[in-house]
């Protein structure tokens, strides 16, 4: 509209613009610069070129291990969580009684989510003599050494995050409930079976929220910290030493800020590449209603 309106809009945005510059953009650039320096808080940062990255990618065996378990963790946890959340949302979308009760019950673990108390509880549940092993023995299985065995420890973190499928499920459920019922009636008249209906009508219509959940859960999973920090302290044998733990210890225990920034940038680059792949591929599988392209 008028000139003062243009000024006004920016005025209302001023907290955001200042915050964006001071707390996001500046640190973002500074972190990139720091990743090319040697900086231990005592002296000023010294520029060392690509030395940090060279060390990371060639000599640092902890980094290699940490990177591979981080990727493994994300690529198992995120698909399992999304599949489970969608599965339960589809069941809840039938006209069932007590739907509000179930939705609440399934959502409570997400609310308590990353809290330390829940991580503590997980340690007790999966302890050698905890109730998970009692339940396993009750149905005739051998008790499992959850935290002592490097092959199991990471899976307990995955289970903790699967237990928190509720927020993804609520989003799926809202999307399912917004689908126009007449589409299902049309499919039913055309003689489509349940699976065909799900695959050809439901799935395309909820691809936007699958996409949204996929990105959000992926970014979140790559930054998992509380679970391994409290439950396993990265062990045993670094089998749960995810990259955020490594970054935290490098930066705030050893005060090796340059090296920690380099690890953070490798992690960031991986997240960015995967996000871009998801965005780029989305035009082939995400369907937006009213979009003429598809």
């Amino acid at each position, binding site marked *: 509209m008028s000139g003062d309106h*243009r000024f006004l809009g920016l005025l209302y945005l001023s907290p955001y613009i200042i915050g964006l510059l001071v707390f996001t953009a500046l*640190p973002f650039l500074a972190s990139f610069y720091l990743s090319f320096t040697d900086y231990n808080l005592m002296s000023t940062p010294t520029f060392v070129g690509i030395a940090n990255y060279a060390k990371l990618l060639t000599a640092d065996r902890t980094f290699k291990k940490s990177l591979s378990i981080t990727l493994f963790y994300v690529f198992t946890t995120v698909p399992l969580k999304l599949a489970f959340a969608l599965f339960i949302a589809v069941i809840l979308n039938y006209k069932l009684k007590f739907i509000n009760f179930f939705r609440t019950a399934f959502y409570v673990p997400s609310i308590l989510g990353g809290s330390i*108390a829940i991580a*503590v509880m997980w340690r007790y549940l999966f302890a050698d003599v905890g109730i998970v092993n009692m339940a396993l023995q009750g149905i005739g299985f051998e008790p499992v050494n959850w935290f002592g065995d490097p092959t199991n420890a990471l899976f307990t973190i995955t289970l903790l995050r699967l237990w928190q499928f509720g927020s993804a499920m*609520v989003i799926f459920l*809202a*999307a399912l409930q917004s689908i126009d019922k007449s589409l299902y009636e049309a499919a039913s008249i055309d003689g489509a079976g349940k699976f065909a209906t799900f695959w050809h009508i439901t799935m395309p219509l909820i691809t936007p929220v699958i996409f949204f959940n996929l990105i959000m859960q992926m970014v979140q999973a790559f930054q998992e910290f509380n679970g391994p920090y409290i439950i396993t302290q990265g062990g045993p044998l670094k089998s749960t030493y995810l990259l955020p733990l490594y970054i935290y210890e490098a930066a705030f225990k050893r005060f090796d800020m340059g090296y920690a920034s380099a690890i953070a940038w490798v992690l960031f680059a991986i997240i960015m590449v995967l*996000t871009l792949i998801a965005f780029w591929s989305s035009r082939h599988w995400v369907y937006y209603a009213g979009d003429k392209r598809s």
Partner: protein
Amino acid sequence: MADHVITTNLADDSEAARILQAQRRRHIIGATIRYGILFAVGLIMLYPLIWLVGASFKTNSEIFAGPGFIPDSPTIAGYVQGWQTSTPYTFGRFFWNTFLIVIPKIIGTAISCTAVAYGFARFDFPGKKILFASLIATLLLPNVVTRIPQYLLFRDLGWLDSFLPLWVPSAFAGDAFFVFMLVQFLRAIPRDMEEAARVDGASTWQVLVFIVVPLLTPALISVCLFQFMWTMNDFLGPLIYISSVDKFPVSLALKLSIDTTEAFEWNRILAMSVLTILPALTVFFVAQKYFIEGISAGGVKG
């Protein structure tokens, strides 16, 4: 001719009845399977929490003795001793600190995010597209990449070991998710009332305070509730910035109790775990519709 019609109709009827019955049977089987799955999943979701509460009233020797949650000889020893902690402070102090972090942070978030969302949703200005794109980018930007320079910035400002690093970024609309949520909500509200008020001579500021904010209230409640939960649960922020025990929030205090007493005093840890999730749990049950609506709106309309 008439006979023929009647007999085919009869055949049709019995056929239809058969199909109907089969459908009903399939419906009952389907419903049974669905309820079975829901109850099983519900049990897995809730039993750990029920067990946690029950076990916090058990004696240490009983905690790992059986899978049940009802204590044989209920005791509040875990609560009494856990509350005292191994520090000079009680958990009351740590709850107070948490409160001191949470409340200013929520107020700063609510005010700044409302103003910014209003600016995005109701005004045109140069660079709007880029700024909105930056909001989405911030939403996706992993905190891990900005954390170290932020720490250095707050150190240079002399803010380490204070609550300022936890408050200030939020007061500058630092939580992009909330701005985004409010913008989506505002875009769905018709502008008629605001335009009428403008015609009557109200300033944009008055429109914001007297018309937009009341309409925005449900969404603002969602924002405050989510910020409350996230701040209550936040561990890494205080871990990096708060170093004196007298300023610890409950998340750090709980970690401290684990490190100092977990070897044998299990019921203290469990009791304090229950207490630290109690505020979040209470708020959730009182206001759960705002959570469900907030998260659905943020996801679906985005």
